[in-house]
């Protein structure tokens, strides 16, 4: 039995002892040993209380029971928090050991006392004692700030002192009047007191709240974060934040439910404002400071929701707090390794891939992505808030979280993509160990929270584990990993084959088997390709789990996993940094909508079968539908939400583009299919939502295609084309009839095949020619004949010209339209068909036909491994064109059970609908015979044609000047721009840019609040106090 007092006595004794130790190294050893002892004690308690089944204990001092003497309490929360505090202290001490040793025993003593004070804040049950520990923490903070090498730290420390003077004054007044009114300082006694002194307690409460750095009274904290030694910032952020939060929590327990709204309000305002203000930050530590402030605000808001969270309160609050503590401490420690302060300076981390992994872990953890605790916590929190109808709060939380994800991922993008400048990395083991420990803690907590969650433990999911295994296997050469990956996908597909219904089977085939085929292209990469396989397999893991997901939780978890995996994957492209960012922001925005939708639908249930969406009733159902639909449509890049797609797909690596285009987009369609199957038609305010989707689908098809024809960049062209194609599929689904769905599924298959093929082909060409601008290419047909064939087959299939498979899609599409109820949106669709023709022609013409350029005269065919999947696709396309029934017949039958009749009849080789008929084999044979006959005839009459070269053209009696001036390729469809250019004005881009710009400008304006003047900060604090008071009394 270790007394909890060890946590106080040991550091204190250590601190006093340090005065006797002269040698800095010995002093350091004492310090570390003391902290280690404390951490061990805390760990022991966590073990006892958490696993060994011990009860919480109340520790009396002075041999007298409370309220007459100070008492401490050690329960599971306290044990966990003290463990966090002591461990952070230990690791921070390790991290800054050089500074400590240099500064001498005093600094170490201060550090020990700081840790002791934080533990004391957590443990004590006495109000005044709380004050004492806070003061200790404040003074220790003022001392530790000085450890920084930054000369500005002095000023920050003074500001901190000024503000803590004001806080402690308020706290003292509050305490003494609370004592006066209740006759006790024992927290439980105050809680039990009959008459609660509202104003006095308000002062106590507001003082503790001010310790939590609420907006706007937090300028001092930011200055401290920015200028302190990062290890110490880690301590403030993780340990002090946790301790203060627990103090606030204690006060809220004492104060009762009346104080919860205020806590919530303070917390949420701080959360949103902190994240908003972090947006324009350029200094990593200040950014982390804003983020810390925001996170602590979030936990405070959660504390304010304890009344509704009930038994989940600790799970949620600690999930968020643990995520914050581990990730933030880790990030601060990382910041200590980076030499410069700009966000882009973190590019130096690239020298050490494990550090990038650590960075990714922390960012994902902060952003609340699975499988980290924040994810489970978010799920519970949102679920409860939605069930209680606190939708504004829910919205604000998600909005803040989105902002946070925005700047965190932007920063991550900087680290991965910017050029590392100047000084590198301080990579001493003492700096690396804390980071490593934080990473381990992060994954340990992920396991722990998954284990404790009422939902499935995500880390038990085989696909996810498989993906994570690649992190450990990253030292292997790429081809080994590629083989493993393909084998894994194939094995998982074979393993789960029995579990899919025909609808899911189509998606499974595309995502898993198709994924394996796409991965064949990755054999072309040499070396180790660090980071590629974990990301790719993460995405595939998400996809694999998505198709199998039966309940909302696993669905959403899979959704986020695939989102984050694909984000890392997209980010790998050379210039993809901004595009990957907009991808992740839009995806997370969509994911949050899905989350909210599920939560609203759940009405308090922990998780429910996705199919049960069908049982939702009127007032809620349309809103749920709306949120889910928008969420899924973000992924399918429907018009308006499409701005992330072109860049993300175009800038991705050659073999990544087909994955994110051919495969990933289908996740959105899958979601929509599941949604529509479950919920069917919904009406909101008299508007049929499926009709709205129909219009969106049609508009996406038209505008996507229209934008595609104006692209000069081949991959962007394909990317815009995907928007259009997804529009078709969305349109098909939204028709809500049998044939519409069949057409959508046909599009799913076709789009996978030809878009993967085209992306690979174009990627191969771009790889060889060193450019993606089509007008710089031209005439490559003879040099890259295989690529030409795959593009040719691809565009024939895509344009829907018989006899290839695209026609089947069109045919079903027309038949579906005949049964559709609304006719107007189809006009847009009709228009988009021929437009598709335009960009497809442009694609093949400007790349392969026309004039070959000087510098491309010696390019070779695309790499072998890029060609392999393309040739497989060519075969697949032709096979699918001949016998579409192989894939579609089952689905047709399956759909027959889900949607009213109107299916096709598969009579021999002819496919018959209610309206028409279609015989793919006959078409192929007839066209083949005619074509062959005519070809032979031409060969006969024209057997002696002289093969000429590219300048042997009639040129109005002149000769071409140079290939560049002879290749007609740039601004290919100028008349279209004149006629319809107004349709492709970047309205959506402008809109989103406006929002982003507005947020940044607003943040930039608001942060001028923090003038850097200590007095201003004091004023902020007082204004905050007065304002909160007015808010509370006004309520």
């Amino acid at each position, binding site marked *: 039995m270790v007394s909890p007092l060890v946590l106080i006595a040991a550091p204190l004794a250590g601190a006093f002892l340090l005065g006797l130790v002269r040698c800095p190294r010995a002093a350091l050893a004492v310090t570390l040993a003391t902290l280690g002892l404390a951490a061990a004690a805390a760990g022991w308690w966590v073990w006892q209380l958490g696993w060994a089944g011990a009860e919480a204990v109340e520790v009396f001092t002075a041999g007298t029971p409370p309220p007459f003497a100070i008492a401490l309490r050690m329960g599971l929360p306290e044990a966990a928090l003290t463990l966090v505090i002591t461990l952070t202290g230990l690791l921070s001490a390790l991290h800054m050991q050089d500074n400590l040793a240099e500064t001498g025993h005093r600094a170490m003593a201060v550090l020990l006392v700081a840790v002791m004070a934080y533990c004391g804040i957590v443990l004590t049950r006495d109000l005044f004692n709380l004050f004492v520990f806070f003061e200790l923490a404040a003074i220790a903070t003022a001392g530790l700030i000085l450890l920084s090498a930054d000369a500005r730290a002095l000023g920050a420390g003074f500001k901190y002192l000024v503000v803590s003077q004001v806080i402690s004054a308020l706290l003292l007044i509050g305490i003494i009047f609370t004592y006066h009114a209740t006759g006790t300082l024992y927290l439980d006694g105050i809680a039990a007191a009959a008459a609660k002194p509202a104003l006095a307690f308000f002062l106590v409460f507001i003082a503790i709240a001010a310790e939590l750095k609420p907006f706007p009274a937090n300028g001092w904290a930011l200055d401290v974060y920015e200028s302190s030694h990062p290890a110490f910032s880690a301590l403030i952020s993780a340990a002090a934040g946790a301790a203060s939060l627990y103090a606030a929590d204690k006060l809220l327990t004492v104060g009762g439910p009346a104080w919860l709204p205020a806590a919530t309000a303070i917390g949420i305002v701080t959360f949103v404002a902190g994240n908003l203000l972090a947006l324009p930050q350029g200094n990593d530590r200040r950014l982390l400071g804003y983020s810390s402030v925001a996170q602590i605000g979030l936990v405070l808001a959660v504390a304010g929701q304890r009344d509704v969270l009930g038994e989940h309160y600790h799970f949620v609050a600690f999930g968020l707090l643990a995520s914050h503590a581990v990730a933030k401490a880790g990030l601060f420690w990382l910041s200590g390794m980076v030499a410069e302060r700009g966000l882009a300076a973190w590019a130096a981390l690239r020298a050490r891939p494990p550090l990038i992994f650590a960075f990714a872990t922390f960012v994902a953890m902060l952003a609340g992505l699975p499988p980290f605790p924040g994810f489970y916590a978010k799920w519970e929190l949102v679920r409860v808030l939605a069930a209680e109808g606190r939708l504004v709060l829910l919205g604000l939380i998600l909005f803040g979280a989105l902002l946070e994800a925005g700047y965190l991922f932007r920063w991550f993008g900087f680290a991965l993509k910017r050029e590392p400048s100047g000084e590198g990395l301080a990579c001493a083991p003492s700096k690396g160990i804390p980071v490593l420990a934080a990473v381990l803690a992060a994954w340990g907590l992920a396991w722990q929270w998954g284990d404790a969650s009422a939902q499935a433990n995500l880390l038990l999911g085989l696909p996810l584990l498989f993906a994570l295994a690649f992190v450990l296997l990253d030292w292997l050469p790429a081809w080994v990993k590629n083989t493993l990956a393909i084998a894994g996908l194939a094995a998982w597909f074979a393993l789960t084959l029995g579990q899919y219904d025909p609808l899911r089977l189509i998606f499974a085939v595309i995502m898993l088997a198709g994924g394996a085929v796409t991965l064949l292209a990755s054999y072309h990469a040499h070396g180790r390709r660090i980071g590629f396989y974990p990301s790719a397999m993460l995405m595939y893991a998400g996809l694999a789990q998505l198709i199998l997901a039966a309940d909302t939780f696993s669905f959403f978890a899979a959704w986020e996993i695939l989102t984050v995996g694909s984000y890392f994957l997209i980010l790998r492209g050379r210039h993809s940094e901004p595009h990957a960012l907009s991808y992740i922001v839009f995806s997370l925005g969509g994911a949050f909508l899905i989350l909210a939708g599920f939560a609203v639908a759940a009405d308090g249930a922990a998780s429910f079968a996705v199919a049960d969406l069908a049982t939702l009733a009127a007032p809620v159902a349309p809103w749920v539908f709306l949120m889910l639909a928008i969420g899924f449509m973000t992924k399918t890049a429907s018009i308006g939400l499409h701005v992330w797609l072109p860049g993300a797909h175009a800038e991705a690596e050659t073999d990544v583009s087909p994955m994110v285009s051919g495969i990933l987009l289908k996740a959105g369609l899958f979601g929509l299919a599941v949604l529509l199957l479950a919920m069917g038609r919904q009406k909101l305010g008299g508007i049929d939502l499926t009709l709205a989707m129909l219009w969106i689908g049609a508009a996406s098809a038209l505008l996507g295609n229209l934008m595609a024809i104006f692209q000069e960049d081949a991959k962007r062209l394909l990317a815009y084309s995907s928007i259009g194609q997804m529009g078709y599929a969305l349109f098909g689904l939204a028709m809500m009839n049998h044939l519409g769905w069949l057409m959508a599924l046909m599009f799913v298959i076709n789009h996978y095949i030809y878009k993967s093929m085209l992306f690979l082909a174009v990627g191969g060409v771009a790889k*060889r*020619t*060193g*450019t993606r601008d089509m007008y710089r290419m031209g005439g490559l047909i003879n040099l890259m004949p295989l690529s030409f064939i795959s593009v040719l087959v691809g565009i024939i299939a895509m344009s829907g010209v018989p006899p290839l498979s695209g026609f089947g899609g069109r045919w079903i599409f027309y038949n579906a339209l005949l049964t559709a109820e609304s006719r107007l949106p189809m006009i847009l669709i009709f228009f988009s068909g021929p437009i598709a023709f335009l960009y497809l022609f442009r694609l093949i013409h400007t790349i392969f036909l026309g004039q070959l350029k*000087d*510098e*491309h*005269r*010696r*390019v070779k065919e695309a790499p072998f491994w890029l060609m392999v999947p393309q040739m497989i696709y060519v075969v697949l396309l032709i096979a699918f064109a001949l016998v579409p029934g192989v894939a579609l017949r089952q689905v047709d039958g399956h759909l027959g059970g889900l949607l009213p009749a109107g299916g096709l009849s598969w009579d021999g080789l002819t496919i018959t609908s209610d309206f028409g008929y279609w015989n793919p084999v006959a078409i192929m044979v007839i066209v083949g015979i005619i074509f062959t006959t005519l070809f032979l005839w031409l060969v006969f009459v024209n057997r002696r044609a*002289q*093969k*000429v*070269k*590219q*300048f*042997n053209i*009639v040129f109005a*009696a*002149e*000769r*071409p*000047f*140079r*290939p560049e001036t002879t290749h007609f390729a740039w601004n290919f469809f100028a008349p279209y721009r004149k006629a319809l250019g107004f349709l492709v004005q970047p309205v959506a881009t402008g809109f989103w840019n406006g929002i982003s710009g507005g947020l940044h400008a607003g943040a930039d304006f608001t942060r001028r609040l923090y003038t850097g003047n200590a007095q201003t900060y004091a004023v902020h604090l007082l204004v905050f106090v007065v304002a909160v008071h007015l808010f509370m009394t006004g309520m």
Partner: protein
Amino acid sequence: MRDELQKRVVKGPDGVEFEVEPLKDYYCEAPPAEHPPAYLKIVEDLFNWARSQSLWILGFGTGCGAIEMRPLMTPRFDAYRYGVQWRPTPRQSNLFIISGYLSVKTLKRVIRSYEQMQNPKYVVGLGSCTINGGMYWDSYNTIKRLDDYLPVDLYIAGCMPRPEALLAGFETLKHIIREGKAEGANLYARNFDWYKANQKKVIHDWDMPDYNW
């Protein structure tokens, strides 16, 4: 030699430098081939009839005579009724009317266009200038005898010959074609070196391949 036709060193996308020789790399270097009639007589007769009934003139006015050809399209002369029409591209034309005097500068273009026409092809010299230089007999920059440079099937004399003369010329040309005597293209191929030498004698800035396919 013009800049754009000179050898140049370019760097490929893979960073390897290599040499581009435009005249070799961008133009077909093969010399023209003779294409003697290859089918049975009756088939060739049918073909010759068709060729004679379908005279597609390259729409290229080389000199002042071009103005005389316009009226042929008008209701008054209506050359269409004789199977004559104008084509904008030498690839599809089989009749080249050198309409009047031919400056050296234009000769270059004429040669190029002529060589881009397909066998069989016919050349008609219109006006005195194509015969002996006409009033430009001592000009420093017109050619004097078209026949030195291209195989002429028919001359239509006059300065200028009226459209009626042109129509009559067409009839004569048809006659020649039907008789199988209009083999100027083969003549050109056979005596290619001689024609080329003559051409290069007057064209000093020869900046194209020897034969323009």
